[in-house]
């Protein structure tokens, strides 16, 4: 990659692995050799079934976990080597919105205290400035200033998630990891929160990593989308390309499984049904992780782990046979 391209990328993840030791013999490979980059100002969606490592990947990117191997570069600097002032600056620039708005707010703190906690570390505001800033943040996320004196238990799920967003925005970050921010919410509330995230991104030129298992929502909010399966990134492409022209057999199955809200459409004709379930990520076998459920699996797939490669400009796939399959389907 040239020097210029490097400055466009806010986050660069190279060969990232995060393993958890479960017992003396067993290792859970939550994230296994993932390489991706996030451009400044874009939203990268990360989808996959539960247990595929999307959340671990997101958390490692902002150093909530130390990687087992591989590097994460933020604004060109390796985050695991940061210390002192640089580390503090990184923690201000990279923020996270958690999945469960019921568990991620301290029940004994007022909303005002929750929002100012980060500010106290990074800025030297006077009490007056702080109060002003809290009010401004609450207004930005669509709540009124009097919420500052309330407690989390007084709020509904959607309101709590707004507080989670306000807390992340409080320190003026550049990059926010949105870890399933809407999956705990009702449909109509989901739309509100997603609209808010899109609006804030436009206003502040934020970069998002949007982690979700809701494929339709990810398509709606993302510029590019990555698909994970059992710790591996199996496909990465622009939003339109991935949904219109998926190449990996797993992505195809995932996309065909989205139920459409249209009774006329005959789901069963286009559905690709996957047999079985996601195998355990503890001591996974060699070869392609998907080969047990893949109907196109061949000898090579069982032996060699496919590497993510650029099949078309900007379209990365980790599959030995994707070109061959794509050709035969066109015919």
């Amino acid at each position: 990659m040239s020097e210029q391209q490097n400055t466009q990328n806010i986050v660069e993840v190279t060969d990232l692995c995060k393993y958890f030791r479960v017992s003396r013999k067993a290792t859970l490979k939550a994230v296994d050799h993932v390489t991706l980059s996030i451009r400044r100002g874009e939203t990268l969606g990360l989808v996959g079934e539960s247990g595929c490592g999307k959340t671990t990947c997101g958390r490692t990117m902002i150093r909530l976990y130390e990687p087992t191997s591989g590097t994460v570069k933020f604004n060109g600097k390796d985050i695991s080597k940061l210390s002192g002032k640089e580390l503090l600056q990184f923690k201000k620039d990279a923020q996270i919105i958690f999945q469960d708005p019921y568990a991620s707010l301290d029940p004994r703190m007022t909303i005002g205290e929750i929002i100012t906690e980060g500010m106290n570390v990074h800025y030297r505001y006077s009490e007056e400035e702080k109060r002003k800033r809290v009010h401004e943040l609450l207004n930005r996320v669509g709540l009124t200033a009097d919420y500052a004196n309330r407690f989390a238990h007084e709020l509904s799920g959607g309101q709590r998630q707004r507080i989670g967003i306000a807390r992340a925005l409080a320190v003026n970050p550049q990059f926010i990891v949105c870890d399933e921010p809407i999956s705990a919410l009702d449909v109509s509330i989901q739309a509100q929160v997603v609209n808010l995230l899109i609006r804030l991104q436009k206003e502040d030129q934020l970069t998002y990593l949007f982690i979700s298992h809701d494929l339709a929502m990810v398509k709606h909010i993302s510029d590019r989308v990555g698909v994970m399966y059992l710790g591996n990134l199996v496909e990465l492409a622009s939003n339109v390309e991935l949904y219109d022209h998926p190449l990996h057999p797993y992505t195809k199955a995932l996309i065909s499984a989205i139920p459409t809200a249209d009774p006329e459409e005959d789901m069963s004709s286009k559905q690709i049904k996957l047999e079985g379930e996601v195998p355990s990520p503890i001591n996974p076998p060699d070869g392609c992780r998907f080969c047990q459920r893949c109907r196109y699996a061949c000898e090579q797939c069982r032996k060699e782990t496919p590497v993510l490669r650029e099949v078309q400009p900007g379209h990365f796939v980790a599959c030995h046979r994707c070109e061959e399959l794509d050709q035969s389907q066109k015919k």
Partner: protein
Amino acid sequence: MEPILEVKDLHVSFNTYAGEVKAVRGVSFTLNKGETLAFVGESGCGKTVTAKAILRLLKPPFAEIKEGSEIRYQGQDVVHMDKKTLSNYRGEEVSMIFQDPMTSLNPTMKIGKQIMESLKIHKHLNKEQARKEAIELLRLVNIPSPETRVDSYPHELSGGMRQRVMIAIALACSPSILIADEPTTALDVTIQIQIMDLLKDLKTKLGTAIILVTHDLGVVANFADRVQVMYAGQVLERGTTREIFQDSRHPYTWALLSSVPTLAKESKQELYALKGTPPDLILPLNHCPFAARCEHCMQICKEQMPPETVLSETHKVSCWLQHPDAPRTITFHGKEARS
């Protein structure tokens, strides 16, 4: 079409310290033999409470089915059923799959034993017969190697498998009505398809009528025959799946349909988002419950409850926009609201 379950003017209240929460306010519907009826709505709209009331699973005195409510299963009065008939009715006639397969199975019992439990009680089978039957049921719900799985504990199974076990338990006594309360909400998409396919198969194989409680419109479109849209304990609109998805007449249904992103919609555009919150169910309600959040709200909407307008034999809507004096409105589907 033969009606199997009739619910008339169902009112359910919860007695809390804050006051009486009227969770279900006059719900009426009929379920026909072998059909799938979906209850759709946001959380707190009374869909699960209605489902539980059908099984009389609500615990008095905390919860109470109000006087005048009527639930009839093949002519039998369910509301005033005595304990013995009720225990036969539950499980044998009507059974339920709960939302969360992780918590609704007993973690200390082998799954075989949990399936056998109701077989022994209702079908009076002995241990050996019940075990055989349990293995058959596990095979029916597509669990691989049922002979060994029958001795597994729930924690040894994945989420999808646990939901299959739940379905096997519910089907043990071949009920005529199966109530599925958000059967796929806790599951991944690829597993969701497998479970919905299984339910579809069983429906054709066994002729069971299904009440599907869900907030996922995608699942409803692909699975249900009829839909009723619920809000604040009331049914606002009901119709066949096609009528609801292609010619809905209630602004709340439009809001639900337009707030979900679809693969066809343009990215990064504003999604339609409902403003405000559902009404407080403690307070009395004598006007349209959706009035405060409705874009088409008129003076009368805040004053009187709209009557149910019959649009076709199956399609009914409770909305003042159907009144001959209401202004012309274009629906979500781009048609005239009033025909």
